[in-house]
């Protein structure tokens, strides 16, 4: 049961990775990273129960709390960049 869930999550991670690699826009990549983070939290939680050590849930908790910071840093990065260079802020990274 756990293994089926874990497999599904790993496949989803693979798909998210493909989106992160292909892009093409910044938003695709940011969303892919965010999704990857969520899936990692879930994967770690599933594995803790699969191997019977729920005390390791701490790790999933750490990710759940911290993932948000990376997204905010991206937002701040583009805000700063658009302040410096107003025309360039919608330019899509290839």
């Amino acid at each position, binding site marked *: 049961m756990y293994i089926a869930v874990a497999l599904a999550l790993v496949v989803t991670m693979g798909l998210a990775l493909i989106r*992160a690699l292909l892009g093409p826009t910044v938003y695709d990549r940011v969303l892919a990273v965010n999704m990857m983070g969520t899936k990692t939290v879930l994967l770690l939680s599933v594995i803790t129960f699969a191997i019977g050590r729920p005390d390791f849930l701490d790790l999933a908790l750490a990710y759940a709390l911290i993932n948000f910071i*990376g997204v905010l840093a991206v937002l701040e990065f583009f805000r700063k960049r658009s302040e410096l260079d107003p025309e360039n802020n919608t330019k899509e990274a290839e």
Partner: protein
Amino acid sequence: MNLIFGIFLLTLMLITGIAVVRTKNLFVATTLMGIFSLLLAANFFLLDAADVALTEAAVGAGISTVLFLSALSLTAEQEKPCFGGRLLALSVVVITTLALLHATLDSPQLGDINAPVHQHVAPWYIDKTPQVIDVPNIVTAVLASFRGYDTLGEVFVVFTAGIGVMFLLSHYPRKKPHKPHEGLRHYLIQRLVGRTVIPFILLFGFYVQFHGDFGPGGGFQAGALVAAAIILFALLEGTDQAIHIIPSWFLNGMVAGGALLYSAVGVAGMLMGGNFLDYSVLASDPVAGQHLGILLIELGVGITVTGVLLSIFLAFASRKHF
């Protein structure tokens, strides 16, 4: 089963790693590095190395992305084209890879019970930890007590790295106040969510700090988590506000104070008749002394790591664009 998951995650890591090297856009490389770190942590976890995975989670998920992006905001987004030297680089990489692959042929299989480490090193720690130190997490016992010297060295490495970055990047506060950095103060959703999350990250950080004897975690992880909480605050409210709350003299004190606390525990052991970093003499009962020593040195580690990570972040963030 773990093996299949491990191989799959390693393959994804390999693909991500190659993509990071191939891409010319540094922002894309940064986001891919975030994915790389997530995959790495999941891999560590599959190998049952929860403490290492927690470190990777605490540093890789939040702080390294933030640091990469703040470095990136000081430079151009595209990698400079590089000509020549490629054959040399390729040959060095190929030779190193072949040498490493050759070395893995001699190393024991994963989980082989006849591996040297399972013959005398690990059994000794498993045997001695309940008697001498009596903490459930043997990793903490090894890291903080049996191998306290190595960890002291690591703390000083972190300390030195922090000093190095401060030498390169730190600035004198300007006399005339420039336009204050406002952060994401005007983004309502982010601000509300962030302000709600910060106390929980801090609480979790302290839990990891003081629960390190019993579960995964310890000073390094806790330091990174606490630093992440304050970095989140700085992102939301602006770095000026963060510097106002944690002034640089206090940060410098943290950077040096944690390392000093660690060394002081070692010297205290000497003064009380033991060896350097021998905690057994710190209390009348040797096991209680070990517990006290581990608590104090983990606190020292946590303080230094928090201080160094925050100093590096603020050094980057308070610099203007070139």
